[in-house]
C-alpha cells in the first residue's frame, strides 16, 4: 500500500515480549519511519500507553506476570485504548489458541520464528491501515463539526424568519397605542385588547425560543423516540415558511407507527427531518422564483413499518436534484443548493447520523417532477 504520510509523523509501535532478543530481532524489520517503544515487563504496558500515542502493539502471548491474552482483554475493556490494533506474536505450538486471540480483538498474528520480510510487510500494512482509519475518523469529526455550524446558521435564519412577523405586530401595536393616546382616542377596551395582543405575541416569541433551545440542548441520552411526534415537532418549526410560500405538507403514517417508539437520540431524527425538509423548501422556493405558473408545491412524508425497519419517504415536486450530482449527493461538500452557496454538508451529516447512530440507510431518487428520499431505520 502506497500512502503519503505526513512527513513529520512517526508511527509508534509498542513491542511487548519478555525476551529482549526477540524485540531486537523485530526492530530490525522496522521501516526507519517507525518509532519503537518496548518493554519486557508486561505489567508496564498500560503505563506506556498512558504516556504515549501508540499506533500498533506487537504482543507476545506467553509472558510471566500478565500474559498477552490478559493484556488484550484489558485493552478492549478500556475505551482509551480499545481501538489500538494489536498483533499477537506466537509460536507454532500456540496456534490452537489463536481463535481466542482473534476473539479478543487481535487483527493478526505472527508466528515465531519470524520471517523478517513477512514481519515487515504485515507491520507496514497494519500501521498504514490504522493511520488511514484514524484520518478518516478525524475528517468525519471535522466535517460533522462544520455541519453542526452550518445547521446552527440555518436554524438561526429560521428563528429570525419566525420572529419577523411577531416583531412587526409588536411594533405596530406600539405605534397604534402611541398614536391613539396622542389623539386621545384610546379607550379602555381598546387599550386592554392591544395589551392582550401584545402579551400573546410576546408569548409566541418566547415559545419559539424555547423550541429552538430545546432542540439544541446537548448531553441528551438516548430515549424512546416516536418518529411521528419528532416529525410533527419539526414541521411546527417550519409552519410559517410553509404558509408564506404556500407549500402543502402532508404526513401519512401507518397506524402501527402512531404509538411506536425506538431507542435513539431525538436530536438525530429531528436533524435528519430538518435537513431534508429544508432542502425541499429551498428547492421549491428556487423553482417558484424561476417559473410563472401557479403550480401547487408539496412535501409529502410517508411513514411505514416494514419488518424491522421504519421506512420514511420524503417526497417533493420541486424539479429534482441535478442528475450530475445525484449519485454523489451524500458525499461531503456536495451542495444541492443554488450557486453552491450551501456548505454541502447537510445530506452528508444526515447519512452519517442514519448509518452510525440509527443503523439505517438513506437513498435519493429523482421522480417525474421532484425527488424522493427514502430512509430506513432499524426499529429495534
Amino acid at each position, binding site marked *: 500500500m502506497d500512502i503519503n504520510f505526513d512527513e513529520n509523523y512517526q508511527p509508534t509501535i509498542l513491542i511487548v515480549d519478555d*525476551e529482549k532478543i526477540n524485540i*531486537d530481532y523485530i526492530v530490525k524489520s522496522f521501516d526507519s519511519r517507525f518509532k519503537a517503544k*518496548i518493554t519486557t515487563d508486561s505489567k508496564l504496558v498500560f503505563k506506556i500507553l498512558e504516556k504515549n500515542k501508540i499506533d500498533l502493539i506487537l504482543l507476545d502471548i506467553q509472558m*510471566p506476570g500478565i500474559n498477552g491474552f490478559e493484556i488484550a482483554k484489558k485493552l478492549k475493556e478500556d475505551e482509551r485504548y480499545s481501538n489500538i490494533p494489536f498483533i499477537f506474536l506466537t509460536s507454532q505450538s500456540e496456534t490452537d489458541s489463536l481463535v481466542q486471540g482473534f476473539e479478543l480483538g487481535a487483527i493478526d498474528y505472527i508466528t*515465531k*520464528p519470524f520471517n523478517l520480510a513477512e514481519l515487515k510487510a504485515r507491520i507496514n500494512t497494519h500501521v498504514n491501515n490504522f493511520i488511514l482509519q484514524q484520518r478518516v475518523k478525524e475528517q468525519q469529526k471535522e466535517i460533522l463539526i462544520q455541519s453542526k455550524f452550518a445547521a446552527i446558521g440555518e436554524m438561526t435564519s429560521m428563528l429570525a424568519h419566525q420572529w419577523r412577523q411577531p416583531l412587526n405586530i409588536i411594533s405596530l401595536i406600539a405605534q397604534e397605542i402611541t398614536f391613539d393616546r396622542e389623539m386621545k382616542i384610546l379607550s379602555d377596551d381598546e387599550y386592554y385588547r392591544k395589551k392582550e395582543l401584545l402579551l400573546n405575541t410576546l408569548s409566541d416569541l418566547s415559545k419559539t425560543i424555547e423550541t429552538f433551545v430545546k432542540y439544541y440542548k446537548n448531553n441528551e441520552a438516548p430515549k424512546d423516540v416516536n418518529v411521528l411526534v419528532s416529525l410533527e415537532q419539526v414541521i411546527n418549526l417550519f409552519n410559517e415558511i410553509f404558509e408564506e410560500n404556500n407549500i402543502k405538507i402532508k404526513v401519512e403514517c401507518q397506524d402501527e407507527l402512531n404509538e411506536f417508539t425506538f431507542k435513539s437520540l431525538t436530536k438525530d431524527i429531528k436533524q435528519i427531518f430538518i435537513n431534508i425538509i429544508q432542502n425541499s423548501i429551498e428547492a421549491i422556493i428556487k423553482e417558484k422564483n424561476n417559473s410563472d405558473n401557479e403550480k401547487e408545491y408539496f412535501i409529502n412524508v410517508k411513514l411505514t413499518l416494514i419488518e424491522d425497519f421504519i421506512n420514511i419517504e420524503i417526497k417533493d415536486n420541486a424539479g429534482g436534484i441535478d442528475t450530475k450530482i445525484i449519485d454523489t449527493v451524500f458525499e461531503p461538500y456536495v451542495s444541492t443548493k443554488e450557486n453552491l452557496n450551501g456548505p454541502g454538508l447537510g445530506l452528508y451529516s444526515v447519512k452519517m447520523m442514519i448509518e452510525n447512530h440509527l443503523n439505517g440507510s438513506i437513498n435519493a431518487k429523482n421522480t417525474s417532477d421532484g425527488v424522493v428520499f427514502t430512509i430506513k431505520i432499524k426499529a429495534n
Partner: protein
Amino acid sequence: MNIDINKLLEELGETSTYSLLNKFLITYKDYKNHLKVDNEDLDKYIHKLKGSSGNLKINSVHELCIDFPKNENKSEVLDNLIKKIEDSFLEIKTILKDEKTNNEKLDPNKIGNALDELIFDLNEFNYIEDSRVKVILNSLDGIISNKIIDNLEKEFANGNYEKSTILCQTIRSLI
C-alpha cells in the same frame, strides 16, 4: 553447522547479525542452570529458547526445543540440548571473531550527558540500540567498577529498563 549464518546475514546484514548473536550469548549465558529436569520453569525457558534460536537460525537448538514437549525422555533431550547450545556458543564466538570489536569511547566530558540521555530514553521506554550502550560502557571502563558495568550490560541485554535506569542513575552519581 548449527547456525545458518548465510541466511541470517542475508536477512539482517552484518551489524545486526553480530549484535544479535552476541546478545544470544549474554541472554543464555546461564543455560546449564536452567536446563535441568527439576527446574519448575523449564518449559517456559525452553519456550523462549525455541523462539530466539528460531529467529537467529540456530536450527539444531530450535529443533530440539520443538521436540522437547513431545519427547518423553526429557533427560536425553536436555543433554542433547546442552550439547547443541555449547556447540552453538563456540560457533557464535568463532563468527564474532571476524567482527570488529567496538572499542569506541566517548570524550570523558560527554559521558554525563550520554548517561542523562540514556536515562531519559529508558524512562520513555524507547528502543535503544546496543551499540549506543556499548560505547557508554566502553567509556566507563576504568572509571566505574567492572561489576556495575557488567550488571548494566546484563540488565540492558535482558531488556530490564527499570533496573538499567537505577544502575545508570547510580553511575551518574558516581562520576
